[in-house]
């Protein structure tokens, strides 16, 4: 990271007419002027306003822009609920093997057996990890996995002649849960959490009836707590014919320790970009496979990867009760190769060790911080911990202020103001790939900020000062949206 990097250009501002970086093949076929091959009305009359730059311009520009980012490769990135763990480099090499990277999705099945086999094995492995009966790899991200799951639940109820209208969601849920529910045509009913931060069974009991399609729970929940009464919850739901959905965003806490399928969940999704080390890429692509119990199998998205008696793999399209397709092709295959590589690297013992160390690291942070920040809940946490800055807030220092000061001290910030049920929330997820040394440095920084809140709050309010820009005017951006570059010449 450059301190207050002086670089402030956009690629368009480097443009010079006639400069170019491309290398294209010569026209080797006998041809009329290409512009006459298609009728004139289809040929663009004015060229798009695109940059004209050299290759070295491109390399230097984007290299410099990259230096304005914090990433896991350069910084500790304790962003809660996002599982910003190390992304192994071997995953990248494997995803770039030409047989995977340069494979067209419509290649005949007989000539894409390796890719289909990898998908089949990964789905089988995820089913074993989750205790579910089948897994669809098609959803492109967690929110799409949720969508596929809720649609399968909807189709299941309809197949039994039941039209249910409501979905129950705890007040601690990720925003995608209610948004997905609404997209699937359901009415959202929010449930309260109890004092311990878990699902309030009395409130659940009050809301459970035959009009509820599903109860969506994050397990462990967004407070970093394992819902200890989960068997009771799933039994209560099933008694009313309600399907139970597990948001698997926090799967990194439970690998090899417990399995959603064994807890009574009917559906769960995975975020391969969280638990299974595929890179976050600045905001995706992710992958959001969804696992289901056997009674939901007829409704899986099409196509399903199947193996025949002769050990040949194929895409099965003949599924008349399917909820349909989520994206044009079969899934974010490149991400699937990375997750497969990771699971094979770790093996069963390795995966369990992942969760044990994720839990250990989170509890260590919680222990070190509890003297200076208010804990959101009592007792041990799972893979992440939530603390509140309400003590600091009384001194005029908010969760946002703390986040900004952390940037100056060399750390990315925890998730702030989430879950919504904790005031001034700071949600910290260290992951298992970080060492005690890194955790200590981070905790030292957090404690230093707590001290500064008492002695020198101005320093926190001024932060960040080491980043390429300082605090940005969000209001201006929203009031006068400037969403693209405009040429001064225009």
């Amino acid at each position, binding site marked *: 990271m450059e301190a207050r990097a002086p670089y402030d250009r956009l690629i368009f501002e480097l443009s010079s007419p006639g400069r170019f970086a491309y290398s294209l093949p010569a026209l080797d076929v006998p041809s009329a002027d290409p512009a006459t091959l298609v009728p004139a009305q289809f040929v663009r009359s004015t060229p798009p306003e695109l940059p004209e730059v050299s290759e070295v311009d491109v390399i230097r520009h984007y290299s410099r822009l990259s230096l304005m*980012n914090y990433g896991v490769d350069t910084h500790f990135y304790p962003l809660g609920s996002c599982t910003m763990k190390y*992304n192994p480099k071997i995953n990248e090499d494997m995803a770039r093997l030409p047989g995977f990277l340069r494979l067209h999705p419509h290649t005949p099945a007989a000539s894409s057996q390796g890719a289909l086999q990898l998908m089949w094995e990964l789905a089988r492995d995820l089913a074993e990890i989750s205790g579910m009966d089948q897994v669809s790899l098609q959803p492109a991200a967690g929110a799409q996995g949720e969508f596929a799951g809720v649609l399968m639940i909807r189709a299941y109820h309809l197949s039994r002649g039941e039209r249910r209208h409501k979905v129950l969601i705890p007040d601690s849920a990720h925003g995608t849960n209610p948004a997905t529910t609404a*997209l699937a045509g359901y009415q959202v009913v929010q449930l309260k959490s109890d004092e311990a931060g878990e699902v309030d069974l009395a409130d659940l009991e009050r809301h459970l009836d035959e009009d509820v399609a599903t109860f969506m729970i994050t397990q462990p929940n967004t407070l970093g707590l394992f819902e200890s009464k989960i068997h009771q919850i799933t039994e209560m739901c099933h008694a009313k014919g309600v399907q139970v959905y597990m948001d698997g965003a926090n799967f990194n806490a439970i690998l090899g320790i417990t399995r959603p399928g064994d807890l009574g969940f009917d559906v769960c999704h995975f975020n391969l970009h969280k638990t299974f080390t595929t890179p976050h890429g600045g905001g995706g*692509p992710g992958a959001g496979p969804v696992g289901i119990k056997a009674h939901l199998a007829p409704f899986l998205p099409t196509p399903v990867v199947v193996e025949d008696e002769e050990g040949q793999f194929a895409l099965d399209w003949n599924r008349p009760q399917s909820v349909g397709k989520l994206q044009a092709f079969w899934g974010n295959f490149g991400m699937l190769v990375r997750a497969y590589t990771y699971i094979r690297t770790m093996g069963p013992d390795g995966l369990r060790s992942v969760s044990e160390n994720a839990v250990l690291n989170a509890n260590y942070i919680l222990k070190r911080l509890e003297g200076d920040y208010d804990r959101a809940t009592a007792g041990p946490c799972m893979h992440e911990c939530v603390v509140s800055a309400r003590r600091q807030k009384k001194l005029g220092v908010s969760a946002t202020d703390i986040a900004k000061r952390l940037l100056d001290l060399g750390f990315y910030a925890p998730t702030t103001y989430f879950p919504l049920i904790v005031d001034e929330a700071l949600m910290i997820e260290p992951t298992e790939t970080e060492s005690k040394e890194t955790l200590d440095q981070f905790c030292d920084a957090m404690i230093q900020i707590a001290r500064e809140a008492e002695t020198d709050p101005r320093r926190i309010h001024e932060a960040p000062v080491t980043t390429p820009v300082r605090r940005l005017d969000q209001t201006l951006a929203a009031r006068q949206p400037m969403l693209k570059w405009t040429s001064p010449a225009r």
Partner: protein
Amino acid sequence: MRYISNTSAQQKEMLARIGAASVETLLANVPAKARLSRPLALPAAMAEGDLVRHLRRMAAKNASADDFACFLGAGSYDHGIPSPINHLISRGEFFTAYTPYQPEASQGTLRTIFEYQTMMAELTGMDVANASIYDGASSLAEGVLMAHAITGRAETAWSRGVNSLYQQVVETYCEGPDFRLKAVRLGDGVTDLDALRKAVTERTAAVVVQYPNFFGCLEDVRAAAEIAHAKGALLVVAADPVNLGFLTPPGALGADIVVGEGQGLGVPMSFGGPNLGVFAARADLVRRMPGRLVGATVDKDGKRGFVLTLQTREQHIRREKATSNICTNVALCALMATIYVSILGKAGLRKVGELATAKAHYAAERFAAVPGVSLRFNAPFFKEFALTLPKAPDRVVKRLLKDRILAGVPLKTFDRAEKSTLLVAVTERRTKDEIDAYAAALAAAVA
């Protein structure tokens, strides 16, 4: 254990500090009954060298476009990918960052998205573009839902010239709110405008056409726009942006929302994903758009900076009232496209279009000259065209694989009526030699 940094001595030290006897103590909240009492039944951990060998063997079973001349299209294309893209996107600062929630520490990502939005707006001819949706099909689904939300109407007039896999995705998204798709038939390879006129009513939220359409033919977007607008419906156009350096952009032809699969802009085919969902619209519709938007602003010293903006549309703020449930999108693929467009630039993108259309027309002429083979449609096409074959396309495809040619996509799985049709795509990467070899192999296969 690989990728786990704490030594066992450190683990003990940490447990002591926490005051827990073991990790088991920390897992007290997980009831005994919930615990998995056996190891996961997964293959044992593999050493890196063994794993590489294993995966290389799997990859070698696939017919990659490095080893086969790829004439496959139908939504994914073998366009050239300039070398700098992989080098730049692999920089850990881009690759291992997440959604730019802390803008001061994410200006690199935010700036590239701002550049991307500008490029997509330019290519599509629209006012604004978002930071991306998963792929072309889900982007189209979001476009249709947005048109419903804006107009408050429940029907969509759907050209049969749109990729039927996209149709399946849009139907999935329309299931919950119970919006109906009304199919509009094709004339000779393009949407029958009289049929479209009849299909569009005061109940129509959106008219959807693809340009060029699934069969490669060039739709009269302007006429579709007039028909849609006459009844107060929005025109949603699915268009591949890599073609729009050469083709008239849908924005100039009256589109209200333009979506598309941006994979052609430097994103590897990767067996169909991850891809790049492009989404662009008219400026006055921006507050109804799905997904993330990056905007320019200033910092407290007055210096230019970039932030995620208009976030009150999004799920993490608006929850069930959000314009979409999308959270993670495909920022890294958008970065690939941004670098691609920077390298190709104004002139290069036009050349890609010129080369593709010239080679496609040469190929169409050669292939249609094979006895028994003809072009399925007469409508003007761009880089993709449909052939009618005298023998089952599946068998022809199988035969040409022996000559290391991926001949095209048989359309019978898309449409039962097209059981003799093969869809062929030609990008700038195909050579005259490959096309001539294809023509010879095709002649042998159908003889």
